[in-house]
């Protein structure tokens, strides 16, 4: 009897745990270790990992195996220069098989699509190496192509991180180029260039230990690609410095192997792996998240979290709302110090506990003459009593915590997505009324959510922490458009202008 009871308890717990599983950030099978930069080729997204092979995605959200990378080895990187995709990877080293002797190899192909007739890797050869004794272990290569130069960083915790220069036309090491030591205490480096600064990112902490991996990504910067790189406290990366970019959070442990995914238009994301996704048996998985920039430093953003929000325009501060009549909250008082007007009674006050509350004395100012009690916000029933049926337009207005201004945003399963995220539906909280793109670039709300492409929304966090909101599809057009405050109170769907606040949005808790 007892054993049956325990089985029932165990099964119940399993069911509860399964139901409580957090919404996974990437769909499909994003299982990979030491991912390369995510890159596009022939309309698809590719990422490669340790051991060979890699993942492919049609939309950057749902991933599956199928990428082809010969050569084996560890921690590859990939970059497109001209008509070539260069891939670098390391063979040997990393403490594996007893030593730190290692070679970084480069190869190229014209396409990453294994089904294309142009898919064929051509070996460039060894571009960096370590002999097993020197203060370096040549693994974890990473490319940066900036200002006409192709740089390659490499190295791990054994000794220094080094940078060499390659010829962007051939992928070979520049003749006579010597490696330069730029950091210690890290591996899985990556290089960025932005607004005159070179950034060296690297992974600190321990890898390969599941949910006990302390892996975290840090950064230093320099005006010179060969350093010296320092962090925000001026501590040299050659002395262990590094400002945190991203670490463990929620159900994800061990962030490592940063890769930049620059989508243009002011939208930057980054890829990495988690050593352990606790919702996926603590397996190592890929993730893609927004990249923010604060005071000249990259900061790892979070993927958009479903919830109930005010959607606020960065342009005017106005709140996105249904264009409906404003319904007053009648407290039975008028403003100022005056006594209640005879025509105003407490019958308009919201019912509390089944009884009409007593009318409060006095106006809204001055010391209260009677008991002070909380009053409820306007309810959905009170607000929606005046809403028309069918499609309702939207506009921007002063935020008043009214139901017609409060939106529920939730991911839509099995509707695809975009790099790092599924599509969302945006509905008036408590209803099925859904924000939708209509013809001619207008924005409306439909009475109910149907899952049609014009009702699916892409929400990208921009580098300054505001958001861009785009429909998956605008009827009658293939243009990529974004929700834009074309006036202080007016909205439209037009081409995204990342240089203006009019297409930037904030999501605030109601």
């Amino acid at each position, binding site marked *: 009897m007892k054993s049956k009871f325990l089985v029932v308890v165990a099964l119940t717990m399993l069911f509860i745990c399964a139901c409580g599983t957090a919404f996974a950030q990437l769909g499909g099978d994003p299982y990979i270790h030491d991912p390369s930069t995510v890159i596009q080729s022939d309309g698809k997204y590719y990422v490669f990992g340790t051991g060979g092979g890699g993942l492919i995605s049609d939309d950057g959200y749902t991933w599956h195996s199928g990428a082809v990378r010969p050569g084996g080895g*560890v921690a590859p990187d990939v970059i497109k220069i001209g008509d070539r995709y260069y891939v670098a990877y390391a063979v040997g080293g990393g403490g594996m098989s007893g*030593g730190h*002797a290692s070679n970084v190899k480069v190869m190229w192909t014209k396409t990453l699509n294994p089904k294309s007739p142009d898919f064929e890797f051509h070996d460039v050869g060894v571009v960096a190496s370590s002999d*097993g004794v020197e203060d370096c272990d040549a693994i974890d290569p990473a490319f940066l192509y900036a200002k006409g130069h192709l740089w390659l960083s490499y190295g791990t915790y054994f000794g220094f991180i080094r940078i060499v220069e390659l010829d962007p036309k051939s992928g070979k090491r520049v003749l006579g180029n010597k490696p330069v030591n730029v950091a210690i205490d890290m591996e899985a480096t990556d290089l960025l260039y932005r607004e005159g600064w070179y950034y060296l990112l690297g992974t600190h902490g*321990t890898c*390969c230990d599941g949910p006990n991996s302390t892996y975290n990504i840090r950064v230093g910067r320099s005006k010179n690609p060969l350093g010296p790189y320092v962090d925000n406290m001026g501590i040299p990366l050659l002395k262990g*410095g590094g400002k945190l970019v991203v670490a463990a959070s929620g159900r994800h442990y061990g962030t490592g192997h940063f890769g930049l995914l620059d989508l243009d238009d002011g939208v930057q994301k980054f890829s990495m792996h988690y050593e352990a996704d606790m919702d996926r048996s603590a397996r190592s998985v890929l993730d893609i998240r927004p990249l923010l920039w604060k005071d000249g430093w990259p900061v790892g953003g979070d993927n958009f979290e479903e919830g109930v929000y005010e959607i606020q325009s960065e342009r005017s501060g106005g709140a996105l709302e249904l264009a409906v009549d404003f319904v007053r909250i009648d407290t039975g008082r008028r403003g100022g110090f005056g006594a209640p007007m005879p025509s105003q009674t407490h019958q308009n006050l919201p019912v509390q506990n089944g009884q009409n509350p007593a009318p409060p004395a006095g106006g809204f100012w001055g010391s209260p003459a009677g008991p002070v009690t909380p009053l409820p916000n306007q309810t959905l029933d009170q607000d929606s009593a005046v809403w028309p049926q069918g499609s309702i337009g939207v506009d921007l207005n002063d935020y008043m915590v009214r139901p017609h201004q409060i939106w529920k945003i939730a991911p839509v399963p099995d509707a695809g997505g975009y790099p790092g995220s599924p599509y969302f539906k945006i509905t008036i909280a408590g209803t099925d009324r859904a924000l939708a793109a209509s013809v001619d670039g207008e924005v409306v709300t439909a009475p109910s959510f149907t899952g049609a492409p014009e009702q699916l929304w892409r929400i990208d966090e921009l580098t300054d922490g505001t958001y861009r909101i785009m429909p998956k599809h605008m009827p009658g057009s293939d243009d990529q458009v974004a929700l834009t405050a074309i006036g202080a109170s007016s909205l439209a769907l037009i081409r995204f202008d990342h240089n203006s606040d009019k297409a930037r949005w904030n999501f605030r808790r109601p």
Partner: protein
Amino acid sequence: MHTFCKSLTLGISILIVLSVAVLSFAQSAPPTPAGLPGDGRLPASVPGSVTSKNDVPRSLAPYFTPAIGAPKPTDPDGFIQRWMLLEPIVKQNRSNTPFVGTYVRKAFTAEYFPDQFTVVPRDGDKVTVNNQELKWHALDSAAFDVKLFRFAYGLNKPTYGVIFWAVAVVDSPHEMKNVRMAVGSNSASMWWLNGNEAANLFDDRRMVMDDVVSNRLTLQKGKNTIRGAVINGPGLSDFCIRFIDEDGNPIKDLTVAVQK
């Protein structure tokens, strides 16, 4: 037939015995080490030294030079570069994950050699630890940090699964109150100033300058003894130490003489 059955039975029995032996070995073998870079596999020669096909004659150069001559000041950033270093004590650890505070304290408070918390060694002094004769070396580090891995490697001593002891006698021109000892180490370590615990670096760590900074301390006028122990499994054992004032500025007017 009877002979065949006997042979078959014997063969099967041997097979069973061998299988059990293999399974028993697998179960008693230590678990795959974790928390390492790369794929988590250890170098084949733990505890031992880094192996390479190109193994060349070893020396402490260019990382260390013998400490001789005049007292050595700190480097321009205040790091103390002159140390007495004891050849590594073997303390097998296949990974660095055990280095929580409790473990490290226990590891360092065990007595390895007489007077290990009070001795001020001289160059060439010897101790015996677990039947191994170990020597103290008076050395100047070429860099801001003291690369213990290179110290061990250069002397052909074990580099992984080890404990290092270090001592420096720092001369202060005057009493300095409210200073702090700023330490970085790979991996865990403990540090004492004039016999009192000053800074502890627990858990697996890489060496970061000013990683752990002590409570306020007083450097007495004249001699001050810094004593430290560093433990590591597989990794580049290393440490760096300096003193900083209340504003975080390095203290540079300290010197370390050769102990005679």
